[in-house]
């Protein structure tokens, strides 16, 4: 079921969809993000790596206006995000938070239906319902369709929220640790599903995901951005960014790296922590 890294990564010269220029973000006096610049192209999948508090979540939330940036500009398809009506923005970007804690007893089918909200006026058509049904199958969630969301396990909820983001049919997916609550098999299934959506050459979709698992980042991304103390320390193909020295600098651990070959993706074996974290 798993493709090799080489097959997964299409590579291509798609046009730039998302552009971030000189972005600064502060919580009070604390400068969380400093002068962030990067582009994301269509059919591109970008992983954001960094230790706790490096600013991964903050950066993701700056891209879809959950956080109001203090300086700099985010544009989607040349449109300034801060000036777009929220409903239009939600047609271009969907966001999957780290966790959705709720006591709201809504059925899974209706949770996914929320993804149609930007596309319908009030009534939903059988067509919208079919989109929901197909996405449920795509993520192996058909058994849960009429179960209550608040009674699902953490992993099930996470998949439901990702599926809702897919129902929203945006051009950019923002995923904050999309596999944090998932078991091994489901992690791969979920990342594979997203990878396939991004790869689909009929559309120019892209995904940005914050993640702790370096191997997942290496296997599923075209590009890795290493965020360190609010700045981008490195940005490039996984094999250039995920290096012994970078991992040591950012995470303070030793590691052994086996580069990707034709039939297996890059592999990082984590070793001992280096005395004190920097």
């Amino acid at each position, binding site marked *: 079921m798993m493709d090799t890294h080489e097959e997964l990564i299409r590579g291509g010269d798609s046009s730039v969809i998302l552009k971030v220029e000189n972005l600064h973000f502060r919580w009070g006096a604390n400068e969380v993000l400093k002068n962030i610049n990067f582009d994301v192209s269509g059919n591109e999948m970008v992983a954001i790596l960094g230790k706790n508090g490096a600013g991964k979540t903050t950066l993701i*939330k700056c891209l*879809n*206006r*959950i956080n109001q940036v203090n300086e700099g500009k985010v544009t989607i398809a040349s449109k300034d995000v801060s000036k777009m009506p*929220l*409903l239009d*923005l*939600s*047609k271009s*970007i*969907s*966001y999957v*938070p780290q966790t*959705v*804690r*709720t*006591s*709201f*007893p*809504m*059925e899974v*089918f*209706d*949770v996914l239906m*929320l*993804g149609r*909200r*930007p596309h319908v006026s*009030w009534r939903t058509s*059988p067509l919208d*319902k*079919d989109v*929901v*049904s*197909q996405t*449920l*199958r795509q993520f192996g969630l*058909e058994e849960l*369709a*009429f179960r209550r*969301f*608040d009674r699902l396990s953490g992993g099930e909820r996470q998949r439901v*929220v990702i599926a809702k*983001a897919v129902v*929203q049919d945006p051009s950019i997916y*923002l995923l904050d640790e999309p596999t944090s609550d998932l078991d091994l098999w489901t992690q791969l299934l979920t990342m594979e599903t997203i990878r396939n959506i991004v790869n689909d050459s009929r559309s120019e979709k892209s995904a940005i995901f914050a993640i702790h698992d370096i191997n997942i980042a290496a296997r599923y991304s075209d590009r890795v951005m290493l965020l360190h103390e609010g700045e981008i320390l490195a940005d490039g193909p996984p094999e250039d960014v995920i290096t012994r020295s970078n991992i040591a600098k950012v995470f303070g651990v030793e590691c052994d790296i086996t580069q990707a070959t034709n039939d297996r993706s890059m592999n990082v074996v984590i070793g001992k922590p280096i005395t004190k974290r920097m």
Partner: protein
Amino acid sequence: MDLITKSHIEKTGRQIRLLAGLLFLTLSFALFSLGTGSSNNLGLVPTMKIIFGLTEPTGLQSDIIWRLRFPRVLMAIVGGVALATAGALMQGCLGNPLVSPLTLGVASGAALGAAFAIILDFSFIPEVAIVANAFLFSLIVVGVIIRLGSMRSVSAESYILVGIAITFIAGAIVSTMTYFASDAQLSQLTHWSFGSLSRPTLTDSAIIGFLVLSLLPMGLFFAWDLNAMALGGDDFAISTGVDPRITRRNILILSALLTSIIISFTGLIGFVGLAAPHMSRLIIGNDYRKLIPCSAVAGALLMLFADTVGRTLFAPVVIPVGIMLSVIGGPIFMYLLMKHKGGMGV
């Protein structure tokens, strides 16, 4: 068609039939209520014959039905619809199951206005002093809500806390005023606070009905936004295309208006706005697209039921609906909560 889609459509169909059934029950009960009262020669059967044009009513019968009972029944329906809708909207947008239309302080504003009219004899429109004062003072509270909503960092809790503060302030002023009030004024103020459907005339009920009816579709319009906010909080709502801050403010203004329109005419009625939405959750689930209409109908039924019992239990003495709602609705509400424990989200 996809099988999952098919079962969802079937489910929606069942819910709509359920809602239609509840609506039919409410309208039937309204007819029953029209035929119930302390007048001996105007029971259920004669009333139905008159309403459906089978017998010619005497002048007195016509007066009893159309000038006494009908405005009251209409007011029960309209009041129940408005307060229950306001309750459902507010519980949703504040993410709090304890919220009722009285929480925002609109009712306390109205009570303060009524006290000004009754005790100080102060009013902007002397002909309809109490109603006008109650409405205008509650609009001041609506103004506070609008002001609060325009602040950048306002949270759901801020609205509740400010509402509680307003309740305390208004309550303190009313209490102070009662020190200077005569016995007759005190009794009038107490009666006002009971919440009664006997005050509005036919014209009043018709005007209120029209106002409520024109505001209701806006409530339904917010249903999607409420679903998004209730499910995943503000961040999740933003990524679904909903601005939680603006939506919350607009919903609260709408709820506050619905509440003040009713309460200015009837006095304090709160319980229906708390209970009807929760009962509806048990009947039809939590999707606000269905919950809002269901709450509206359930509110009307609850109010009609309470008022009809209040009119007949100790006839010819009429117990005000505000009291009956708590006496009858309270135990039903508690029973439902205990039977379905754990099923109460907002």
